[in-house]
């Protein structure tokens, strides 16, 4: 299997290499037949183009607003850079691209659009929510069945589909006016204010809900696995805040944590 293994590594390197005429392509070319119409490197180039096209299409479908804001050509160029330094580690292409926002943050040519990384974060959260596990809403009455003595140990969970996103830019508005079916004004004032959002799915209904300070703080605390005992100390209005969040669907379940102090 050694020969086969070496050949596969060489071919992959030739396909993923940034330089179409570099060493990796030259080395792999030696294992590839030339034909009437095409030299060995040209045969490899067919695969290089196909693979690049696949990554561009996949990320273009996942990050449509990011692409719209940059224009397709710029976006495609960015994907080319990203895919060279970010190998795909799953056979499912839908798993690819989780670190795209961080990449954009460090991508100098896109620095003129400082809100772009957060737009990409929102799009990744949307992508995650779309195919997250189906859940039924939490019935608040179920909480009253927990014995008083166990309440301090309660741990709450956000829906499996949920992501929280804080941005200093109005990313929800930016996202909204860049939807295909948007017919209103496309102008967004960047000073409009920060956004604190929960991106999630209720049933099959995709949602981006803006959160007030207290809602944001509570939901953030829940993602830190903070038990009821501590929540009650940190949130004096727990008695109303918790049912309020459950009612919106932002809390999907609870369980009993460790009883240690």
């Amino acid at each position: 299997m050694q020969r086969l293994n070496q050949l596969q590594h060489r071919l992959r390197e030739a396909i993923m290499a940034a330089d179409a005429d570099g060493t990796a392509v030259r080395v792999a070319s030696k294992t590839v037949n030339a034909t009437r119409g095409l030299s060995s490197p040209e045969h490899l180039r067919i695969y290089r183009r196909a693979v690049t096209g696949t990554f561009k299409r996949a990320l273009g479908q996942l990050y449509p607003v990011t692409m719209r804001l940059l224009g397709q050509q710029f976006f495609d160029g960015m994907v080319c850079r990203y895919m060279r330094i970010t190998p795909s580690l799953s056979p499912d292409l839908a798993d690819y691209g989780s670190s795209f926002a961080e990449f954009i943050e460090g991508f100098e040519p896109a620095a003129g659009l400082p809100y772009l990384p957060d737009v990409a974060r929102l799009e990744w959260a949307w992508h995650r929510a779309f195919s997250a596990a189906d859940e039924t809403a939490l019935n608040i009455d179920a909480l009253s069945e927990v014995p008083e003595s166990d309440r301090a140990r309660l741990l709450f969970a956000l829906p499996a589909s949920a992501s929280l996103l804080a941005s200093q830019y109005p990313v929800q508005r930016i996202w909204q006016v860049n939807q295909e079916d948007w017919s209103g004004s496309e102008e967004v004032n960047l000073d409009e204010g920060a956004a604190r959002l929960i991106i999630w799915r209720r049933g099959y209904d995709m949602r981006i809900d803006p959160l007030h300070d207290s809602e944001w703080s509570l939901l953030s605390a829940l993602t830190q696995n903070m038990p009821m005992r501590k929540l009650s100390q940190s949130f004096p209005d727990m008695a109303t805040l918790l049912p309020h969040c459950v009612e919106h669907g932002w809390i999907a379940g609870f369980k009993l944590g460790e009883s240690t102090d």
Partner: protein
Amino acid sequence: MSERADVQIRGAGIGLRSQHQQEIIDRQPSVPWFEVLSENYYGAGGTALAKLEKVRNLYPITLHGVGMSLGSTDPLNFEYLARLKSLADRFEPEWVSDHLAWISVGGEYVHDLLPLPCTQEALDHVVARIDQVQDFLGRRILIENPSTYLSYTDAEMPEWEFFREVAELSDCDILFDVNNAYVNASNHGFAATSYLDALPLARVREIHLAGFAQLDSYLFDTHGDRIHPPVWELYQLTIQRTGPVPTLIEWDTNIPDLGVLVAEAEKAQAQLDAVSCSA
């Protein structure tokens, strides 16, 4: 040759694409079966799976994937295979298929079907892998001949012979892609009928048809067009030998209205019917 009595799927089906799902559920077109791309349904939940369930309640399906990376020298990805198995448990496809190719090495995926060298080493390797996959899934799989755009200098046998040997030695079934055979014959300069002469006919359980694109100096398998006349001709030669094997219309880029796919499927059905009558 007659159709297998144990097979639920007959005739010319269509590859299920997300933009057609709702229309299929609402209108229930007269299509005998649909082929589902496994990787499109690897999510834990959501509307895609819910719609697939509705389609499945109306039609028989097959599962077709690109993720097994059967030819790779990496260890098999059992996490992927477990997801595939649970998808198969839930939707009960008639069969599961993937390609005689590799898409990953060193744990990194290129998401394109790369060819294996037609060597004894690669043959032994891929046969052992298919054995493992079939054991794990608890079913016989179909392997498809991929379209290729390069051949290796160290080939020890022609690709049709390699394909046949893989199927025979791993005792798997065959998904014969007529378009891919045509594209490869044109790209590498051999007679497409070489494939037909080598095919272990009894193993051919499904046929794929699709459209290619003529680029500068080669044919590219785009799955983005109607089926070209020479591919129809090769298809006819194929089913004259195999009998009326279930046939699928594949379309993945520039996907047209469902009606266009139905019309292509009807053309294939007419050819299948002609073969059935004369058999």
